[in-house]
């Protein structure tokens, strides 16, 4: 630690830190543009010039290392003169279009110009004009002339997003920020560049001209998408959400959010919103009052329960629902005498149920990821499924950690991957067994019989060697591994691998409440009444289904099975924010509020419960789902449904102080099946980032991005040759009793025998399970 004096204040700061860091500690504000605490130092805006005693010239605070005994003046005559001079230069080419600029009112340049700018410009020559560039559907660069070349966006791409999609071309007055020729900015974190831009050069395209910053009310919320639970500020104008920006939380999302969190708000104002309760009568949908709709549902469920038994009633909910909704749903079901409730819709292996010691979670706090030095990520489309967790792993890798991958696809993670084993889905267990065997050999530990019989491949040995050499190891299971038909075996092996190298073992949460669902008891093996899991409910069709925010053809592991079960049911009740495909088979549609219109709680993947309030009033006659479930509970005479607020429901179901005791990834003995896959093509399914939940599916701008393109059939070159199909042709893909025609794309990173077809998309919704054999033929 060294001592440094800033504006007469003595501060202690770390050796190697800069004057800017010390000033932050001292609470002294130094004006700046290019400096950002999460990005590297470039010192090119020169706005942070300060006077340092004994230095002949002003020095940039962001790039000057603090030295012991240094005396800095940030507001002395020399410093202010330098800062004013810089400001005048910056304003030479900056257009005077603040009145029409979306950044107006929240612009760093505008703010600092108030303090350091002159009243009038001395510059009378022509101003520089930069032609607008087209860089995609999310970021508008229509006014690139506003750019002050701070290069924050460039550095963000290189350092945080992992891919340099914007760069600065040319020099001096010709210098321009642009993307590479004819390419757009496609990073799943690109929206952060809008926040980073200190001027209005990069602005949000969907938000363009909708509001000025002073008209907006800012309300805190939590992301309902991936398992991270990013903290959001929802900006509201006239009871309508018009923008979403991050709220800084170093323990969760730092100061970033993914594009999914940022732009999904468009789905809230979608024309597909369901605004009135509806009942289908004689094949026609009619709008009714809430009382009538709820009576109808209550009577229907009561009659069915009396005639066919309560176990004929099943409830499915997405993990994007709030804790309160999930808790009340399972309470309602158990009150009716049915344990058929589940939120793990895309899971296919439920053999771990009952053997779990607690709710599966990340196994460590999110912030600890940065400190790990060895990763084994099993079955994860990391960047698309958990964009910000991927970013944290990227930062760790940058500091020297090794990332090891076991997966069926080899998408670019935009970080150096030390070792990877790209295998067909059916070989997952075998591959992990190989790694375990190799690791046990290194650590000289005895093996169980089923593991010792596998043959260790080169890749597995390398991964094992990498893990064995680490001091802080994390073994993480992604969405793909959790959806895998042998998920329990994969988890068991991963746990053993982590245990052998004294590492952490965790699950990357797929959705906002992937942990919360377990805590709420929205699983068939919790509570007093046990029942069927999500798959059994479909395999043995029930007479009535209660669907909470679920679109069965897109959200389920096996949409084919789901659809046939729904169509054969006597009564399907959809609690949904949207009019969706369910209108074909449902009997009642109840409009419930999405996350901005209800209060609730999400328990994120590290087990952190985050409650939020509604930001706007529910649209039309929509109501928060917890209220709907509460009234249903009352109408059905289920005791214990007298809640005045969502907080009361939360407090009954969740002891926030004791969550940690309920998180446990350990599971009992699991029998391993290490046989290698036979012949035939196997499906590999990802859930595309902008198809993952009901809200993003309706976010108009996100749906125009490359990530939301219609899915293709992907195979590697040699498989294509065998089938006699060329890349770009159409192919007929058949699974179960349905087939669809999709465009073929060659993807040589895929293992032999694997066919990659996205799930969760209308184009592939007719197909069956996310895993399993599939046939591809020329269409």
């Amino acid at each position, binding site marked *: 630690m060294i001592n440094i004096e800033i504006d007469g204040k003595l501060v202690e700061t770390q050796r190697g830190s800069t004057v800017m860091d010390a000033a932050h500690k001292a609470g002294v504000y130094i004006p700046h543009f290019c400096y950002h605490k999460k990005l590297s130092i470039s010192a090119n805006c020169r706005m942070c010039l300060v006077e340092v005693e004994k230095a002949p010239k002003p020095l940039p605070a962001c790039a000057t290392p603090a030295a012991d005994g240094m005396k800095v003046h940030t507001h002395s005559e020399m410093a202010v003169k330098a800062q004013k001079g810089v400001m005048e230069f910056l304003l030479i080419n900056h257009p005077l279009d*603040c*009145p*029409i600029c979306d950044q*107006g009112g929240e612009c760093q340049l505008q703010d600092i110009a108030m303090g350091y700018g002159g009243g009038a410009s001395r510059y009378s020559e022509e101003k520089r004009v930069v032609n607008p560039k087209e860089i995609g559907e999310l970021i508008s660069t*229509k006014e690139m002339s506003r750019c002050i070349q701070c290069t924050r966006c460039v550095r963000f791409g290189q350092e945080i997003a992992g891919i340099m999609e914007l760069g600065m071309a040319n020099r001096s007055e010709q210098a321009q920020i642009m993307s590479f020729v004819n390419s757009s900015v496609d990073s799943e974190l690109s929206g952060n560049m809008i926040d980073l831009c200190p001027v209005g050069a990069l602005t949000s395209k969907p938000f*363009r*001209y*909708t509001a*000025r910053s*002073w*008209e907006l009310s800012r309300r805190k919320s939590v992301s309902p998408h991936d398992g991270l639970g990013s903290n959001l500020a929802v900006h509201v104008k006239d009871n309508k959400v018009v923008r979403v920006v991050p709220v800084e939380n170093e323990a969760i999302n730092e100061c970033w959010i993914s594009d999914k969190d940022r732009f999904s708000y468009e789905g809230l104002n979608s024309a597909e919103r369901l605004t009135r309760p509806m009942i289908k009568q004689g094949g026609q949908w009619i709008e009714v009052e809430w009382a009538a709709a709820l009576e109808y549902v209550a009577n229907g469920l009561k009659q069915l329960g009396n005639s066919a038994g309560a176990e004929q009633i099943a409830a499915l909910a997405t993990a994007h629902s709030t804790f309160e909704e999930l808790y009340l749903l399972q309470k309602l079901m158990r009150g009716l005498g049915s344990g058929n409730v589940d939120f793990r819709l895309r899971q296919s292996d439920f053999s771990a149920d009952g053997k779990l010691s607690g709710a599966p979670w990340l196994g460590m706090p999110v912030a600890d990821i940065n400190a790990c030095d060895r990763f084994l990520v099993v079955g994860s489309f990391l960047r698309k499924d958990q964009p910000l967790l991927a970013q944290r792993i990227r930062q760790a890798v940058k500091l020297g950690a090794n990332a090891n991958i076991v997966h069926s696809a080899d998408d670019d993670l935009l970080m150096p991957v030390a070792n990877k084993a790209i295998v067909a889905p059916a070989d997952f267990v075998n591959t992990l067994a190989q790694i375990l065997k190799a690791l046990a050999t290194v650590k000289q530990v005895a093996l169980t019989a089923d593991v010792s019989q596998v043959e260790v491949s080169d890749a597995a040995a390398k991964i094992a060697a990498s893990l064995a050499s680490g001091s802080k190891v994390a073994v993480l299971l992604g969405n793909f591994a959790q959806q895998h038909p042998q998920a329990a075996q994969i988890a068991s092996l991963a746990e053993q691998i982590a245990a052998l190298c004294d590492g952490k073992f965790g699950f990357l949460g797929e959705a906002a409440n992937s942990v919360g669902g377990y805590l709420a008891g929205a699983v068939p093996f919790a509570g007093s009444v046990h029942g069927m899991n999500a798959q059994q409910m479909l395999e043995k069709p029930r007479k009535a289904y209660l669907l909470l925010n679920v679109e069965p053809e897109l959200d389920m592991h096996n949409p084919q099975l789901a659809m046939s079960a729904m169509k054969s049911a006597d009564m399907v009740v959809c609690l949904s924010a949207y009019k969706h495909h369910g209108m074909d088979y449902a009997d009642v549609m109840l409009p419930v509020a999405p996350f901005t219109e209800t209060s609730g709680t999400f328990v994120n993947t590290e087990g952190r419960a985050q409650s939020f309030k509604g930001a706007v009033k529910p649209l039309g006659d929509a109501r928060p789902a917890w209220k709907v479930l509460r009234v249903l509970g009352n109408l059905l005479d289920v005791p214990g449904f007298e809640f005045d607020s969502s907080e009361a429901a939360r407090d009954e179901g969740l002891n926030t102080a004791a969550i940690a005791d309920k998180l446990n990834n350990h599971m009992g003995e699991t029998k391993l099946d290490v046989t290698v896959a036979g012949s035939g093509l196997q499906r590999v399914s990802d859930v595309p980032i902008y198809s993952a939940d009901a809200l993003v599916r309706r976010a108009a701008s996100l749906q125009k991005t490359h990530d939301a393109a219609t899915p293709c059939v992907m195979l590697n070159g040699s498989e294509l040759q065998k089938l006699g199909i060329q890349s770009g042709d159409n192919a007929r893909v058949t699974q179960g009793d349905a087939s669809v025609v999709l465009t073929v794309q060659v993807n040589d990173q895929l293992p032999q025998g694997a066919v990659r077809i996205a799930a969760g998309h209308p184009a592939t919704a007719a197909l069956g399970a996310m895993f399993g054999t599939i046939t591809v033929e020329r269409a």
Partner: protein
Amino acid sequence: MEKIKDFFKTFLLVELLRGMALTGRYMFARKITVQFPEEKTPQSFRFRGLHAQRRYENGEERCIGCKLCEAVCPALAIKIEVAEREDGTRRTTQYDIDLTKCIFCGFCEESCPVDAIVETRIFEYHGEKRGDLYYTKPMLLAVGDKHEAQIARDRAADSKYR
């Protein structure tokens, strides 16, 4: 002594005659009453009357929807909605001034970066039913179009003090 003086003053109607003398003087003095509406008082070029929206000489409306007038209006009399026009420029889709709320402070005019919203010399306007004084964008533009010559003259006269 004073009492006696007062008695005679009252008795001789001195105060009354003094008053009558003043009245008599004004009876023959030059009249200053303005015979409205035949006659009108002179107005400053800064007179703050009915609002108008101006256009550029090429017919393009000046307003760019920056909403500064809406933000500055102390009576919350202005309501603006903005959207991107087909040609990509920022334009208002709604610009309403509720003249029954307006206190004619002139802040809107002062805050406007493009001199789009102005207050004219017109003060003899009225409404016959509720809502007549709720001026919408076409109404404001019509006022501007009709009086542009006078408005421009007034702005020019004021420009040297700004």
